[in-house]
């Protein structure tokens, strides 16, 4: 009895979370330029309308920014995670707090400050500026994922490998790499998605080189373009879900129970 109540609650909860999102794919296949019920028919023509050069340029911009931000923030996160987990550092907690702070600063504040900064330094608004802004947002995610990974990693494992006859390179290859790899891949996926979906900082810093979210925002001014935006949103949604699920799967893979005596 009680279980059934909980089940109903859980269903409502999931519906509340995901029905609004599902409106996007639903209308993206609706054969009408107006977003309203009842649905008028099935079409894929809005997806055909995506073959637009400005859109494709925005997609390429977003991919470039996302890949660069993912690689750089994961590298920085890896170094910082190694430092805070492997060495006794003075000001360790202060450093961690400062690195994580951008998570709690509203993106619009971050976006405006970065705009002012770039302006006063006389730098051009560009994808490089967007990427640097995204680094601020992405590094905390990368750090969180990688610290968790390092902490589940007994330092003696690397020593045990040396003890069993392997040199530094083989130890990295046979022990460190396999144990850190799921964390590194998870960090790459998460930071890529974070950068790819980010709008506010990109809006302020991208100048004339729109990223995909900025492009979508610009298209919302034209009602006729709305179904096309829905189609695009559907694709982004699908890819995001796949990547996040993949990242979570990897992040949890091989995370072991606490070791006896460790």
């Amino acid at each position: 009895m009680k279980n059934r109540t909980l089940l109903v609650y859980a269903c409502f909860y999931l519906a509340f979370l995901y029905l609004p999102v599902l409106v996007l794919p639903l209308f993206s296949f609706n054969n009408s330029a107006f977003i309203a019920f009842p649905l008028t028919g099935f079409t894929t023509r809005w997806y055909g309308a995506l073959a637009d050069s400005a859109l494709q340029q925005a997609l390429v911009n977003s991919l470039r920014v996302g890949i660069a931000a993912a690689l750089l923030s994961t590298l920085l996160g890896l170094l910082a995670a190694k430092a805070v987990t492997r060495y006794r550092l003075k000001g360790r907690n202060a450093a961690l707090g400062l690195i994580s702070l951008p998570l709690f600063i509203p993106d619009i504040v971050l976006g405006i400050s970065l705009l002012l900064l770039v302006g006063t330094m006389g730098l051009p608004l560009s994808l490089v500026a967007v990427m640097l802004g995204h680094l601020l947002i992405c590094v905390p995610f990368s750090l969180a994922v990688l610290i968790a990974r390092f902490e589940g990693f007994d330092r003696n494992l690397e020593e045990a490998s040396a003890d069993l006859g392997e040199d530094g390179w083989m130890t990295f290859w046979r022990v460190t790499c396999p144990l850190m790899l799921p964390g590194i891949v998870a960090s790459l996926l998460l930071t890529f998605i974070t950068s790819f979906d980010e709008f506010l900082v990109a809006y302020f810093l991208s100048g004339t080189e729109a990223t995909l979210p900025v492009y979508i925002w610009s298209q919302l001014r034209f009602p006729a373009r709305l179904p096309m935006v829905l189609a695009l949103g559907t694709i982004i949604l699908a890819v995001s879900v796949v990547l996040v699920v993949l990242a979570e799967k990897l992040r949890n893979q091989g995370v072991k129970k606490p070791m006896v005596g460790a």
Partner: protein
Amino acid sequence: MSFLAVSKVSKSFGGPAIVDAVDLSVERGAFFALLGPSGCGKTTLLRMIAGFETPDSGTITIDGAVMNAVPPNLRPTNMVFQSYAIFPHLNVFDNIAYGLRKLRLPGDELRRRVEAMLATVRLEGLGGRAADQLSGGQRQRVALARALVRQPKVLLLDEPLGALDKRLRETMQIELRAIQRKVGITFLLVTHDQEEALSLSDRVAVMSGGRILQIASPRELYERPNCREVADFIGEINFFHATVKGMSDGNVTVNAGLLGIVTLPSANVAPSITAGDHILLAIRPEHIRVGGQGVAGEIVTATFLGERSHFHVKIAGRTELVAVSGQAPSGKDVMLAFPAEKLIAVPTL
């Protein structure tokens, strides 16, 4: 030349010496224990022998070869870590086979060796088990097998039983000893558990503050500690202040206050003691004869422990000591005898 020799080895990490001019020699095939409280430098010494730390001075030789500049991966030692350090991404078989890669054995020879080692540590049939599905005792066995399969000249064990519960620890102690006899490899064990050190080893070095206090067989350590710290650290013991009156060959006469004038065999007297010294006389609780002819005392507490009883006794109204006896005396008043051949004399410091 002993098999494993540590000579004048010192190590500090910037501050005071953690290991201070330690000399140690271990015979081939011995089961040797380094015993001491935590922070006494025993683990640092072990890690220097394994090659994870470099001595500031002194030399370490194994089977005649100086090890100081040899990195851990090229030393003829293997280690069982306190945390066991089982590779979590490998199963039991691959953990044990990890250190055999360099030998480039054919597949069935590798399999035969690993299976034989699984049998030695009594994990037959568990080769395919994932590392995270092992119990504490099984992890310990895998760590042992992984180190032994390389047939090291010296096996180093860092508190190997510390993470196990009491019952399992006792079982593993017996098994560890049996495995050592079977493989015949020199074992060097680090522990803070005196019972473990005494029951497992042929010889024990007691360490404190980075120095070695005494190296002896377990029996000798218990019966003839050479200083107060060793006497205190190994088992329970009672101390009395005393003064050496005279030494003749074979015997030493001391004025032991409450116990009167006592003559004890000089084998029971630490070598550094000379006539006129202020010393400590020590006796184990089980060596005090409760109900014997001697000093009158008053029982403060008596604890019945089954086959024996444990007493706290006051003598002369102040000195409190511990005695163990098979039969419980009746009443509060008790006579205690201190057999001279069981008294040990150690320096006061």
